[in-house]
């Protein structure tokens, strides 16, 4: 087993704060893929997801001494990323030629068949049509398996609110899927 697999986030954070900076490499190695994919699904833009991930990791490194619950490093890192994403959304933007949006996101052509390209596009489209708050919680719960108390830290929101939001998002997704499914017998 490698060091990155055996040591907890808390231990690595304490090592970084103790002056062993290379321990942060292990934290980056552990969380960068999840962070990038969370932001990629949230923004539907690879370039933006890269930038936001990089910025979130940099900020987490620079402000690591401010982290109180060291075992909650991941929640704290994702919270930084969510805040960066929200700030980015509030900023007025011009279309940029270099940005790389996800292929076909938003297109819902073709019949809904599980396991097909149409199903992928449909599901992505349904998620993208959720409100920002619903989308954040669905992505954190479904793809990253965060608990409600962790999501409460990330999204800065009470657990009860998160549960009701997830219920509503789930109902929206279910209704969307039902409307896309082919009628029985066809």
């Amino acid at each position, binding site marked *: 087993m490698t060091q990155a697999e055996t040591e907890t986030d808390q231990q690595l954070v304490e090592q*970084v704060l103790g*002056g*062993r*900076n*290379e321990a*942060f*490499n292990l934290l*980056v190695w552990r969380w*960068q*893929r*999840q962070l*990038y*994919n969370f932001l*990629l*699904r949230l923004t539907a833009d*690879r370039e933006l997801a*890269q930038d936001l*991930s*990089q910025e979130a*990791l*940099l900020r987490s*490194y620079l402000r690591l001494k401010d982290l109180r619950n060291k075992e909650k490093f991941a929640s704290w890192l994702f919270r930084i990323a969510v805040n960066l994403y929200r700030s980015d959304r509030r900023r007025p933007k011009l279309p940029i030629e270099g940005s790389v949006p996800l292929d076909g996101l938003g297109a819902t052509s073709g019949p809904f068949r*599980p*396991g097909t390209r149409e*199903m*992928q596009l449909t*599901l*992505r489209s349904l*998620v993208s049509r959720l409100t920002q708050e619903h989308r954040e919680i*669905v992505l954190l*719960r*479904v*793809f990253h*398996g965060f*608990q*409600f108390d962790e999501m409460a830290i990330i999204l800065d929101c009470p657990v009860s609110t998160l*549960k*009701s939001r*997830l*219920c509503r998002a*789930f109902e929206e*997704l*279910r209704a969307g*899927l039902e409307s896309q499914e082919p009628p029985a017998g066809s």
Partner: protein
Amino acid sequence: MDCEGFREHIFEQKTKKLSTAEIKDFDAHHQNCPSCQDALRDWQKIESFLRASWPSEDPQIPFFVPPSRAHQGSWLYNVRNWVSAASTAVLAASLLLVVLLRPSVQYNRHELSFRFGQTGPPAEAQPVSQVQVEAWARNAVEQAVAQETARLQAASHSMSDSPGVEESRHLARMGVELEMLKETEASLWQQVQQHGLYLQSAWQRPSQPIGPNRAPSMSPQ
């Protein structure tokens, strides 16, 4: 457990956050409520569809890596730190000495001299009033006129004993010089008046310092 409570617990079902009693309630409601069975099945389906249809990607560029301090404990690292600290201290001490000793370098054609310590401040100029300046100028003009008059009187006395042609020539020259003196006196008075005007205007604008560099250039007329 009612349907609302059941649906809230759907999302925590797999995370093992439910207590034993809650799991028992959850299972009991699941057995008896067909709509909640559908809800649970649909959630599991949506969750699995989403995961299957949206696979994770690897980031395309390398991520931030903090600067390594691998050599922090080595002797080279310590020496470098000490040298850096020592040079900073030397520089700070030099600056402090410069501030305290205030060395000054003076050079004339024959020697180069260094002086340390605070050189005395230049004598402060006494404030000069307009009346004083006018009095000085008047004294200077009167002195010049008196000197010239005395010189001419001496010349006329020395020539009083000489015979007629020379005497008349000297008298004529004296007359011319006297005229020139009068003209000079008038010109000097004019300059005094101009200085007085300048000083008046300067006093009316106290924010601007009065000094020789700021005096307007005045050519004698």
